[in-house]
C-alpha cells in the first residue's frame, strides 16, 4: 500500500516545531483521515479539532502546504505526495497546542455587532412575508460555517495583527447578512466605520479565495457595505436627502 509523509506542527509555545509521520493512503482519503490514523497509531495525544468530518461544522481548519483549508475536505489526490504534506494550525490566532489554535477572539468580536432587529410583523399571526429573491441574497452569507479560514488569510489580521481595530471578513459578511436581511431595521453603518474597521480592508479578495463555502465575501458582501458607508458619510447629496426625507 502507498504511503505519504505528513509534516505536522507539534508542541506548544517555543517548544513547537514540525515532526514527520508516515501514513498509509487509501482511495478518497482526506488529510483529516491521515491525522486520525497518526493519532490512533503513533501519537495518541496529537491535538486536533474536528467534529463532523463532512465540511459542515468548520472545526478542522488548518494550513495545509501553507494554504488555509478544511482538513476534512482536502483530498490527498489534490496534493503532491512526492513531498511531505505540511499541516499547521491557523497562524492568525494564538497557538494552543499541535494543530489547535485559540479562536476565542472571534466569539468576542461577534458579540460586539448589533443584533438582528426585525420590523413589526406583516401579518396578524405575527409572521412576515418575503420573496425568495430577497432571501437568496442573504442566504449566501448565511452559508458561513465559521471556520475562520478567511480571518486566517486576511493580511490585516495575519500580518498586521489589527485584531483590536478590524473585525475581519467573517464578521463583515455577518454584518452584511444583517444589514441586507429583508426584515432587519437596525443600522450598523456607523459602527462599521468607527468600531469594526471596514476601512482596513483593501479588497485583496484573499478571503474569497479560501472560503470553503464559496461565499463571494468581497464582491457581494464587503464592497456593498463599503458603498453604504461611503454613501452615508461622504456623499453630501444623499446625506441631504436623508435629512429631508
Amino acid at each position, binding site marked *: 500500500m502507498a504511503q505519504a509523509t505528513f509534516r505536522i506542527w507539534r508542541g*506548544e509555545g517555543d517548544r513547537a516545531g514540525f515532526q514527520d509521520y508516515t501514513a498509509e493512503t*487509501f*482511495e*478518497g*482519503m*482526506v488529510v483529516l483521515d491521515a491525522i486520525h490514523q497518526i*493519532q*490512533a*497509531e503513533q501519537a*495518541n*495525544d*496529537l*491535538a*486536533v*479539532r*474536528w*467534529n*463532523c*468530518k*463532512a*465540511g*459542515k*461544522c*468548520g*472545526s478542522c481548519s488548518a494550513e495545509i502546504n501553507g494554504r488555509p483549508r478544511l482538513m476534512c*475536505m482536502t*483530498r490527498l489526490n489534490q496534493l503532491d505526495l512526492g513531498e511531505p504534506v505540511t499541516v499547521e494550525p491557523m497562524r492568525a490566532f494564538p497557538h*494552543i*497546542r*499541535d494543530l*489547535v489554535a*485559540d479562536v*476565542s477572539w472571534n*466569539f468576542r468580536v*461577534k*458579540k460586539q455587532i448589533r*443584533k*438582528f432587529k*426585525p420590523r413589526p*410583523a406583516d401579518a396578524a*399571526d*405575527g*409572521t*412576515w*412575508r*418575503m*420573496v*425568495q429573491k430577497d*432571501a437568496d441574497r*442573504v*442566504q449566501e452569507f*448565511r*452559508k458561513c*460555517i*465559521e471556520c475562520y479560514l478567511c480571518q486566517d488569510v486576511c493580511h490585516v489580521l495575519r500580518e498586521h495583527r489589527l485584531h483590536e481595530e478590524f473585525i475581519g471578513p467573517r464578521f463583515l459578511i455577518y454584518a452584511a447578512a*444583517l444589514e441586507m*436581511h*429583508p*426584515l*432587519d431595521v437596525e443600522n450598523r453603518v456607523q459602527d462599521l466605520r468607527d468600531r469594526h474597521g471596514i476601512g482596513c480592508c483593501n479588497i485583496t479578495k484573499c478571503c474569497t479565495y479560501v472560503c470553503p463555502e464559496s461565499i463571494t465575501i468581497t464582491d457581494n458582501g464587503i464592497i456593498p457595505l463599503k458603498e453604504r458607508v461611503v454613501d452615508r458619510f461622504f456623499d453630501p447629496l444623499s446625506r441631504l436627502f436623508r435629512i429631508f426625507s
Partner: protein
Amino acid sequence: MAQYETHEHDVIVIGAGGAGLRAAIEAAAGSVSVGLITKSLLGKAHTVMAEGGVAAALANVDERDNWRVHFADTMRGGQYLNNWRMAELHAKEAPDRVKELEAWGALFDRTSDGRILQRQFGGHRYPRLAHVGDRTGLEMIRTLQDHGIHQSIEVYMEHTVIRLLKDGGRIAGALAYERERGRFKLFRARAVVLATGGIGRAYKITSNSWEYTGDGHALAYDAGALLIDMEFVQFHPTGMVWPPSVRGILVTEGVRGEGGVLRNKHGKRFMFDDIPENYRAQTAASEEEGWRYTQGDRDARRPPELLTRDHVARCIMREVREGRGSPHGGVFLDIAWIRERLPNAAEHIKRKLPSMYHQFKQLGDIDITKEPMEVGPTTHYMMGGIRVDGDTQMSDVPGLFAAGECGAGLHGANRLGGNSLSDLLVFGKRAGEHAASYAKQARPAQADAGEIEQAIHDALAPFERGGAEGPYQVQQQLEETMQDLVGIVRREHEMVEALARIEDYKRRARQCSVCGHREYNNGWHTALDLSSLLTVAEAITRSALERKESRGAQFRDEYPAKDDRYGGFNVGVRKSAAGSMHIERLPLPPLRDDLKQIIEEMK
C-alpha cells in the same frame, strides 16, 4: 486534595446544540443565572449537520395539515410506543417554535406568496418541513447561537462534563474538565438540563460526529435516572458508501423528496416490491404517481422511496445481500434522471440540494446532476434515552432535565425525518422553562466533596497506568462489534456474543493508558468518552435482547414480525444498587380518548 475551580449557577445546561441553546435561552428568560457547557466550540454541535428540515404543521403549502395529522403521523412512525403526551405537545407547539426562529433572524426558503416553504419528507402526510436548501441545521443553530449570545448566558466552550453530582436524591451540579488546559471545574447548580445529543460513535458506519459518544445517556444512568427505548437505533437508509473515507456521511432524504429514486444494479426501482400493509393506502401505485407527488401534486401519493427509514434501510440491505447491489456494496440513488422531466434540471438540483452537490463533487468525484450516487445504510439517530415527564422534561432524578436526542419518548420505535429539529425547539424550550422554575423554588444543593475527589481521581487514572494499550484500539473494536453484531438485523446469539465482548472492552478500558499531559490531549479525551460508549453499547444490546420482536427500528432475525405482546411496554434500563445493568418493562400509560380517536380517524 484535587484542584478545581468552582462556578455557580441556578441552572446549567449541558450541550449547546439546538436543544441546549433553546433551553438556555428559555431559562435565561426566566431570570435565573444560566451556564451553558459544551464539549466543542459554540455553533459546532451536531445540529449544524441537519439538512432536510424542521417538521411543523404550519399548513403553508397544504392547508389540510394541522397538529392532529402531525400527531397521528408521529405515532404511526413510532409504532405507538411513543410518549403520547410528548407527541401531542410537539405537534401543537412546533409551528410557534419555528415562527419564533424567524423572529430571531432565521431565513427559511419561501413559498410564492412569501411564507415559509415546506417540503415533503418520509412518513409525513403533507409537505411539512420548513427548510433552507439542505442546510437547515446550520440555519437553526446559527440563529439560536446569535440570539443566545445576547441573552445573559455564561458559555463554557470546550468543557466536557464527566460526572453529575447529587445531594441525597436530587441534583446538585456537574463536574467537568476544560479541554484546553485539562483543569477540572465544579459547576454547582440547582437544576441541570442534559442536551448532549446521540450515540452514533458506538457504531463504525455513522453519520454522526465524534461528540456522539452518549455522554448524557451515561451521565444520567450513573446518576440513577431511567433510560428507555435503547434498542431503537435509527439507521438512515442513505449514507455515502464510497470512497472509504466518507463511508457513512449522510445523503439527505431531501434527495428523495425532490424526486430521487433508488435502483438496484439492474436499474429496477426495488422499493415498489415491498410496501408494508399499513402504508399501502398512502403509497403511490406507479412511478408516474410518485413523481407527481414529489412535484407537489396534492392528489398523488408518495413514492415508496419515502417510506419510513427503517423499512427503506432493510430493503437496501436485502438488495445488497441478494447480489443486486452497486459495485461498492450499496444501491443507486438517482436524482440526475429528473432531467427527463424538468428543463434546467441541473440548475434545479444545485439550488435545491447545494450541499449534496458539493459533497459528492468534492469527496467522491461525482456530479449528481449527471450520474447516480451509491448509497447504503448508516447509523444516524438514537430514539432511546433519558425518560422524562412529557410536560416538564424532568427525569426520575429531581432537578435533572433532558431534551433533544439524549431524551426519549417523542419518537417511540422510529423517528420521522424532521421531527428531531422540532423536538429540540419544543422540548428544549420546555426543559429550560421548567428547569428555571424548579431552580427558583429549590433549596441550594450541596455536592459531596468526597465524590468530587473520587471523580477527579478516576479521570486522571489513565495517566497513571503504564498499560500497553491506548484508548483508540478499544474504541475501534467496540464500533466494529456494534456494527457487526447489534446492527440493522439482529440475532440472539450475536448479541450474546456482543455482551461478552463489551465486558472484555470494559476491562481493557479500565486498564488503557494515555501519554502526554492534560493540555488538549485527544487521547485522554477519548479514554474518558470510552466509558460512556461502553455504557450505551451495553444498554442497546440488553434492550434489544429483551424485545423479542421486530418493530420500528429494531429488526430481529428470529422474530421478523411485530408481536402484540410487545406492543404495550417500553424497555427500561437502570443502574442497580450493586452497579450492574438492570432491565425492566414499563407498561405504556393508557392513551387519552380524544387522542385515540385522532389516531383511529387517520388510520
